[in-house]
């Protein structure tokens, strides 16, 4: 059986490499990575890949949609957005954030291991990204709470522990988060100063 040619469209080098690594476990393929969005249609026409993998949120997907339509049924480089017969695989892919364009007539059993590997990699990336965002948000909240404590300490002449206790009590009374109360306080202080 001929090796499949897989094209990955991805700007982020680190991410592209990880997807390539992930695919290595799913069989022996020719994998190419394109990071440049300009001239995408021309590159695909040259490479004639069997499968194109691209982030669901990549704006260049709309270019692939056109390729999938524009070429004749016999020479289409990219035929359809995943396999029409496998709705579950489509959903799993989109939820993971990966879209796949597959050459017409390619059997589902040859596509599946590749897509499964890509889905796993994309999930991993989402998890990492979500964790990073959560860490950033927590840091941001920490800073706001520190500023609110400083405002209270100065205005009421209390120590840090008492300032935090006051924030926490107010939050509990109002059934709000400490960070929300701190945010309001910082904003109000900004208006009054």
């Amino acid at each position, binding site marked *: 059986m001929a090796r499949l040619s897989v094209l990955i469209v991805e700007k982020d080098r680190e991410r592209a490499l990880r997807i390539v690594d992930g695919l290595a476990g799913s069989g022996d393929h020719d994998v190419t990575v394109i990071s440049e969005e300009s001239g995408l249609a021309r590159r695909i026409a040259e490479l004639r890949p069997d499968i194109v993998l691209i982030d669901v949120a990549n*704006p260049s997907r709309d270019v692939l949609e*056109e390729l999938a339509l524009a070429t004749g049924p016999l020479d289409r480089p990219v035929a359809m957005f995943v396999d029409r017969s496998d709705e579950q695989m489509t959903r799993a892919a*989109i939820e993971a954030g990966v879209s796949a364009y597959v050459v017409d007539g390619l059997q589902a059993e040859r596509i599946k291991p590749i897509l499964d590997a890509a889905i796993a990699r994309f999930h991993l990336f989402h998890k990492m990204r979500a964790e990073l965002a959560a860490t950033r948000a927590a840091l941001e909240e920490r800073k706001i709470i520190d500023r609110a404590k400083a405002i209270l300490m100065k205005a009421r002449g209390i120590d840090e522990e008492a300032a935090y206790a006051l924030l926490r009590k107010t939050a509990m009374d109002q059934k709000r988060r400490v960070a929300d109360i701190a945010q309001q306080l910082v904003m109000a202080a900004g208006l009054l100063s």
Partner: protein
Amino acid sequence: MSLHPLRVGYVPLIDAAPLIVAQELGFAAEEGLGLELLRLQGWAQSRDLLGTGGIDAAHMLVPLPIAQRLGLGPDYPDFDLVMFLSQGGQAIAVSAALETALRAAGHGFAFDDPVAARDALERVAPAGLRVGVPFPFSTQAELVRRWVRGSGLAARVTVHTVPPPRMAAALAAGEVDAFCVGEPWASHAVETAAGALLLAGRSIWAAPPEKGLVLTRQFAEARPEVTGRLMRAVWRACRWLDQGGNRGMAADILSRPEYLNLPPELSERGLLGRLHVSAQGEVRQFPDFIRFHAGAANFPWRSLAALLGRGIALAQGLDPARAETAATAVFRTDLYRLHLRAAGADLPGASARVEGAMRGPTAVASEKGQMILGPDAFFDGATYDPASTVR
């Protein structure tokens, strides 16, 4: 009272204003809704999220749900368009090289004369004129096809998809020679000196429906109560956008980092109909460059579905008559009547009409007596009379 959350996808363009305004100015909250607005990167993504349940509703190119129904996309549950969000707002731009050639040939970049612009372009354009549009199924593609039809340009033009944020770069890099796109992306090309604006979309077709509010049929029918609330909130936001003096504030809201993330000065051009057509700062006033409400702009005429369905079918080699009938079922004038009557929307007596027949504002019969529609003429005087199956 807690608000009912709804996830709504939009692509960052000035015509996403109705959804953003509905949330920001409290029209959604008045209906008990909290809109979680998700900024998307393109139309395929919007379609896929709606099709797989990642969002409840979408700001979508009007022809896109029609193309879905014609089998030109992935196999998702049926999409329905329940109301239009905007009309117009597109512009055609040409590359800096073509601008120079057009000026040398005496073209004045009036922005509102499709025949003069087409004739001038025919004299100076290369053998192959590549025109960028945001998506294969877009009002922009329909506008370009109509503009060149029957002219010497028709055989020379090829239409290519370019993601709107990349339009200016694609024009500058010579990947396309011209493009038709929604604001602010045409102005963005002028701002980066990649090209000049040749025509307003509304100069080619006075009432081109541009974006619609699209839901899955499943959602619209299983949850009529929430669908109605969403439609009323968005309809009121559209009305607000077309009330005098509100567009400047709308530009400020839209431009915020969480939405379009652009200088308000750029979003304002399309919203106020004051376009800079060239990098030298020549300004053209185009009244009603984009409409959100006036002239019953939100009513999803079944005849427009048929017209656009026919355009897609002809471009894709499908049977036009079947496409017209299938397309008509996508536009839910029944839901529009059901849900917006309560908000005070006046409703036309008919749900289909002859398209392109109104050269100026025209009074027609409505539930409240009379309503003013139009104009909706095409620049070349063409009209489209839908088949009886559509009416």
